């Protein structure tokens, strides 16, 4: 996989900590490989929305990569619940279903960005850089990559 210049946390220069949420173990491994090539650290994984909320509460990752269609609780609902309790949460939706209504629903409920599967590493890299720079002012501006 292509190597990218590391994306660091601006406040302390440490590696960005990720929580990856997807019901497919392959999708999680694939995303983990990508974020590690960006210099990031995967601190947790979850296979559904309910587990994602509890993992977030425990781990407080810098970024959540969240699938939409999952068992028990879908990603948009989980994102909404996480952002309600943690308004600074940076959640990037990663889904193969990328139609406008879905993107708008995700952004309205607190997601910062949307990336469509199959994920291209260079696209995700740009989104991560954008989201890590985002101070909240531009929240909801990015989608449809």
């Amino acid at each position, binding site marked *: *996989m292509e190597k990218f210049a590391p994306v660091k946390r601006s406040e302390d220069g440490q590696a960005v900590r990720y929580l990856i949420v997807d*019901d*497919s*173990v*392959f*999708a999680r*491994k*694939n995303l983990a*490989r990508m974020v590690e090539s960006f210099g990031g650290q995967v601190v947790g994984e979850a296979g559904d929305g309910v587990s994602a909320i509890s993992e977030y509460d425990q781990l407080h990752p810098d970024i959540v990569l969240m699938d939409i*269609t*999952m*068992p028990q609780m879908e990603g948009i609902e989980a994102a909404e619940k996480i952002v309600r309790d943690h308004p600074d949460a940076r959640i990037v939706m990663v*889904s*193969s*279903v*990328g*139609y*406008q*209504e*879905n993107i708008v629903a995700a952004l309205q409920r607190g997601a910062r960005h949307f990336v*469509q*599967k*199959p994920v291209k590493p260079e696209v995700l890299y740009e989104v991560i850089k954008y989201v890590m720079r985002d101070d909240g002012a531009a929240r909801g501006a990015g989608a449809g990559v």
Partner: protein
Amino acid sequence: MRMELIQPFINSADAVLAQGLQSPTAIENLTMEEEAYRRRGIAAEVCLSGDIEGRIIFDADQKTAVRFASCLAGAELPETDGLMREAVCELANQIIGNAVTVLNDQGFHFRVHPPTVHTSEQGSKSSEDTEALVICFSTESGNVFMNVALRYHRRRAMERIAAV
């Protein structure tokens, strides 16, 4: 069956397979299936409900499923049933999701249910309403079959439009 409903699935499968397997793909043949569906390898089924209703089955031989799994994982993986099933489900998920995106932006509204592994050797026979189209994609790793049986609900779509 309306071809404008099928084309996004064909385009999406072509693109996702090429990227997922990191090799070119080609459509080998396209046939109407009159008999009941017969499983060929590792299969996953995705059901749709709404303006468009029906099901799509993805069926890949073992070599192709392992190749896709290995490409996703970034490492060579063994041929275990669990891994191959998971890989074909993820393949189905990505192909359907991309096609649904196109169809939804064209005004068709429907829900996609999560993929399930299709374990029985045989499926239900297609009817006049739900005739099945089978598209065979050839890849460097083997063939992938996409069996599409969809029905367009004109009345449901009209009711939705009238309600807006």
